[in-house]
């Protein structure tokens, strides 16, 4: 009880801190210089329509690389953590029903396709590598749910994961070598604004991100699915 009271007290005090923050806060009437720069230069410099994508993939590409790495790390560590907990004798979970299995077979390609669509168009429309990657992962999830007994291909995921990651870094380095700096998307022609094949390397990078994110999620889910019931 004392703990709750203390927690409440602390939270209220923090609330005071936040309140003073809010009371001092006034929304900007105009875009600040940074945002203005993006609004004015992105289309012409990078050729991307979706400014968020441009920022994520190029301007703040290093963050995104780190973000992908976060998922990579998480997947690796979840794998590490759970590796020690793997069941030794495979038990027989109840297989999903016929309906589920069939539905899965039908749905999975569609889901994967949707995922690819989302990340390939990331520079034009809302969505991109992360969202697309999550959609890819949901396809994998479906497979896992439908057929828990079927051994999952870690190898494939691992290769996709590594390939996408390595290529991502290499493209970044290519930017260093061929264009203005690490992760500069202008190593490829910018193309025509608003087209699919435009905005330099952004679609490529976002696709790689999508693949990698999907692979990481899949790997995570796979690791989890192979744990034992406690």
């Amino acid at each position, binding site marked *: 009880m004392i703990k709750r009271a203390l927690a409440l007290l602390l939270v209220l005090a923090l609330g005071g801190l936040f309140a003073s923050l809010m009371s001092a806060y006034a929304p900007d009437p105009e875009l600040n210089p940074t945002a203005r720069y993006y609004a004015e230069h992105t289309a012409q410099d990078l050729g991307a329509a*979706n400014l968020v*994508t441009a920022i994520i993939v190029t301007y703040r590409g290093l963050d995104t690389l780190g973000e992908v790495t976060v998922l990579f790390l998480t997947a690796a560590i979840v794998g590490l953590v759970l590796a020690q907990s793997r069941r030794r004798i495979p038990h027989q979970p109840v297989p999903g029903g016929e309906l589920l299995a069939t539905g899965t077979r039908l749905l999975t390609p569609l889901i994967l396709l949707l995922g690819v669509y989302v990340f390939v168009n990331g520079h034009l429309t*809302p*969505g991109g590598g992360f*969202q697309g990657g999550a959609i890819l992962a*949901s396809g994998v999830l479906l497979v896992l749910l439908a057929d828990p007994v079927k051994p999952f291909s870690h190898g494939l995921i691992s290769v996709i994961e590594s390939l996408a990651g390595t290529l991502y870094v290499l493209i970044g380095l290519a930017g260093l070598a061929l264009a203005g700096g690490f992760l500069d998307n202008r190593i490829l022609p910018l193309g025509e604004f608003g087209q699919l094949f435009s905005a330099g390397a952004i679609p490529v990078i976002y696709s790689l991100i999508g693949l990698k994110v999907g692979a990481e999620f899949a790997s*995570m*889910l796979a690791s989890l*699915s192979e744990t034992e019931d*406690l």
Partner: protein
Amino acid sequence: MSPILTGMTVLLCLAMIVAALAAIRVKSLPMAILAGGLVSLILSVVFLILAAPDVAMTEAAIGSGLTTFLFFFVLSRMRGGEDD
């Protein structure tokens, strides 16, 4: 911005707070997880209102979708853990 949109935002926000309170107060752990997912889901709608479609998509897919799923995945492996 239209008053309707503002009113809707307020309502959504209130719903989020209720869901959040539920997430930390309800007795049943699965319900708590669901409530947490619900916060994310409503949040993605709010993001849309706040003109952030990219974020909304991500929040819906990752924040409410995958996260909730991960919770249940883990929870399903730990029978009895929810009572602690």
